[in-house]
């Protein structure tokens, strides 16, 4: 050893090599391995806890929600008596027959027909007469004849039929009256009850009655809102990304834009709602509760997502492609629109789909611009009051009626299926086109 000998180091050298077989050393190693195993278990535990929490969430929603796609119906023998309907059979065959039929007194007819249900005559849904009308309008020849129809029952009976109440509990805590239980037993005993697929849930609009409420109106509202969002955010996002990546001169303006985009991407969504309220509603005077304003607000919210994704995609296009195109005399604009953008498109689409999925699931900003309107019909246009799917979930979750719990969960299931499909498409696109160079 050439280093100068120092007492300290020499003392150390006298210790000799480490004796790994000494019992204290072995015990120490055993202890360290125990620590290692525990740490590893802790990591797995964290993963399992998080996963099971989410599995529990999904489980409760599926458990509560799948019955939302079904409704209970009672069989009713209906005689389409022209006198009860208040129409003239002769006039019905005339040119205005359809209009006349549409205006007839179906609630009266229903009331009459419900008498056959005896004690359970008040169990039919308020809107059950619509089934009678639809049946007659579909087949006017039924007028004066008798038909057997299935009509929806009230939510209480519906839930009883689906077994949502614990009937062994004491009467005052089970949430359903003895009278309703008796009605249900009677109907069921008569074989007049069936459970069918609830088409009205998918096509209908909101209602104060759980058995009639549907997500069709909200879904159309979401669609209109998203169309506006895409129409604004996609071109804006892609074009700004092009400018920032391909044309922006290094300088204060580009820095400012970049800073703005990065910060907008992290601003809480509710702040965009405040912007929509203060600017679009109060200053610009655009209509409240309308898909137009909702769409613009969400577009501003997801634009940064699209810009960031598009910039990454554009940056990934190798410079050699640009050089090649420039080399044969293409202008920079032609290079971008003929070569760079088509090549960057998969990446841009991935970002856009993720952004749109975010907009579809967003509720908070829309609350502030009033898209919580109670709309019992499908929205008529982009300036008419409307609501959107997640808002429908929020509104129903607030409702005290028990029948809305399954509706809320069912609406969540629909929303989740759409969102998972969109996100899976985005992930697929990304993995499919990821490393091309």
């Amino acid at each position, binding site marked *: 050893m050439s280093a100068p000998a120092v007492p300290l180091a020499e003392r150390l050298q006298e210790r000799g090599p480490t004796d790994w077989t000494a019992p204290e050393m072995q015990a120490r190693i055993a202890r360290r391995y125990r620590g290692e195993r525990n740490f590893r278990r802790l990591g797995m535990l964290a993963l399992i806890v998080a996963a099971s929490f989410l599995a529990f969430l999904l489980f409760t929603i599926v458990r509560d929600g799948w019955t939302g796609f079904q409704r209970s119906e009672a069989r009713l023998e209906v005689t389409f008596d022209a006198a009860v309907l208040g129409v003239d059979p002769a006039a019905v065959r005339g040119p205005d027959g359809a209009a006349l039929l549409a205006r007839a007194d179906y609630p009266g007819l229903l009331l009459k027909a419900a008498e056959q249900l005896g004690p359970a005559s008040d169990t039919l849904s308020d809107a059950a007469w619509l089934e009678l009308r639809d049946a007659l309008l579909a087949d006017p020849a039924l007028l004066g004849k008798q038909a057997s129809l299935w009509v929806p029952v009230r939510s209480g009976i519906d839930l009883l039929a689906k077994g949502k109440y614990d009937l062994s509990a004491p009467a005052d805590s089970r949430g359903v009256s003895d009278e309703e239980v008796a009605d249900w037993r009677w109907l069921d005993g008569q074989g007049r009850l069936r459970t069918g697929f609830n088409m009205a849930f998918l096509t209908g609009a909101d209602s104060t009655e759980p058995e009639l409420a549907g997500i069709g109106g909200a879904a159309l509202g979401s669609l209109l809102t998203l169309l506006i969002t895409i129409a604004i955010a996609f071109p804006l996002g892609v074009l700004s990304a092009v400018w920032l990546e391909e044309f922006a001169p290094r300088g204060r303006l580009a820095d400012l834009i970049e800073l703005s985009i*990065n910060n907008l991407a992290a601003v809480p969504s509710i702040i965009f709602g405040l912007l929509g309220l203060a600017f679009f509603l109060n200053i610009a005077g655009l209509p409240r509760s309308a898909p137009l304003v909702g769409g613009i607000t969400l577009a501003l919210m997801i*634009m940064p997502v699209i810009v960031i994704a598009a910039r990454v995609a554009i940056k990934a296009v190798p410079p050699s492609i640009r050089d090649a195109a420039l080399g044969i005399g293409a202008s920079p604009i032609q290079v971008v629109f003929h070569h760079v953008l088509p090549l960057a498109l998969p990446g841009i689409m991935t970002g856009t789909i993720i952004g749109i999925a975010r907009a579809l*699931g967003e509720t*908070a900003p829309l609350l502030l611009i009033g898209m919580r309107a109670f709309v019992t019909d499908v929205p008529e246009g982009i300036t008419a009051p409307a609501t959107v799917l997640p808002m429908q979930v*929020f509104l129903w979750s607030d409702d005290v009626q028990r029948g809305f719990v399954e509706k809320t969960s069912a609406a969540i299931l629909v929303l989740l299926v759409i969102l998972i499909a969109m996100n899976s498409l985005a992930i697929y696109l990304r993995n499919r086109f990821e490393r091309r160079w």
Partner: protein
Amino acid sequence: MRLLIALILVLGLAGLAYLAGRARADRMALAAAGGGSRLGTIHSRPVHHGVYVAMLALAPALLVLLGWGVLGDRMVAGQVIATLPAAEQPATPNDRAALLNEVRGLVSGDLPKAFNPLAERLAPVYAAADANGDLLAGALAVALLCAGGAWGYSRLRPDFRARNRVERHVRTILLLTSVVAILTTFGIVLSLIFESIRFFQMVSPVEFLTGLQWSPQTALRADQVGASGAFGAVPLFWGTIFIGAIIAMAVAIPLGLMSAIYLTQYADPRLRRWLKPVLELLAGVPTVVYGFFAALTVAPLVRSFAVALGMTDASSDSALAAGLVMGIMIVPFVSSMADDALTAVPGAMRDGSLAMGATMSETVKKVMVPAALPGIIGGVLLAVSRAIGETMIVVMAAGLAANLTANPFSSVTTVTTQIVALLTGDQEFDSAKTLSAFALGLVLFVMTLILNIYALAVVKKYREAYE
């Protein structure tokens, strides 16, 4: 509707302008060829000439239509109200808005009959003024379109640099789209500041930022005690931090960090390949779903737990329920940030430690996590910023009572909950109650902005250190 027809008309005419410009360029090309079969040289391709003419035609017309679409309603309304004699003029802005609503309802046919007889009288006037305005705007747009198109058409020459012109305009459009981001930021800042200033004219900023009492109810009578409401927002700030930065993070940091460690260091690569996309999917679950889960399932469980612990006054909208679910929501986010930070640590560092005879857990605890700490902290700060700005979970599961308490089983309220509560339902736009929502929004914006800028700087610096 009329506006839509005008828009379609304008677009159609612009299409014609394109075709005309293109046709002329084609003819010029033929002429330049001197009758031969080969096309002669004109500077730009016919397409560019066509686009140039169409652009000149379209731009002013679109501006006119856009302007009328945004401002038209107000101009018509002002005009209609002005026809009323002074005595019948609506007294307050609210009356004016109600009257105009009825008038519009009558005109569109949504309203069969108005309550205000004035509305019945004004409806035909309004309809006429609206139709006039639409006609005028449409005519102006078409006129400008023709003028622009004609001017553009007249400028076409074989050596006219149509392509350069078009491309310059395209560049300008690209620049303008980028400026939208700045405008949005300014829009947010201005609307928040503007409304907040109005609020601070009624309530002192000091009281707002340091007061301990929050009860924004407007009084029924002017002489009522506390008629102006109390706007001390400290309980709100505390509630926000308690739920978002304390309870949620107490759940999300250990779960997220440990999952990330397990996934990056221990898990089978196949498991990792599966779990990463699943985590991304989970991050896409709408917050309203978590809110529903918190309110319907978790809150009752937490309450029964508290009652079992002997707390008789346990709240059914406890801070714990909202914070727990928010923490679960943030787990995928924290996990993915920690994952990024851990994978950014050079493999040589890990190998160095393992080659010394360290176990994996010792390597993780003593080398990897300390090395990745800036990245992890940055990720956690971003997660906090997300949690305090999160709205739906707290709106659905947290309470409205502004309590200053550290008991997780009692109810607290948050900034976002209050913003929603203050701005939904009936609102008078000038009341301190409504305006306070914007002041809260401003505080939230500034808080998240600071967190984000700081966190992004930390993360960026960290990434650069290992690149």
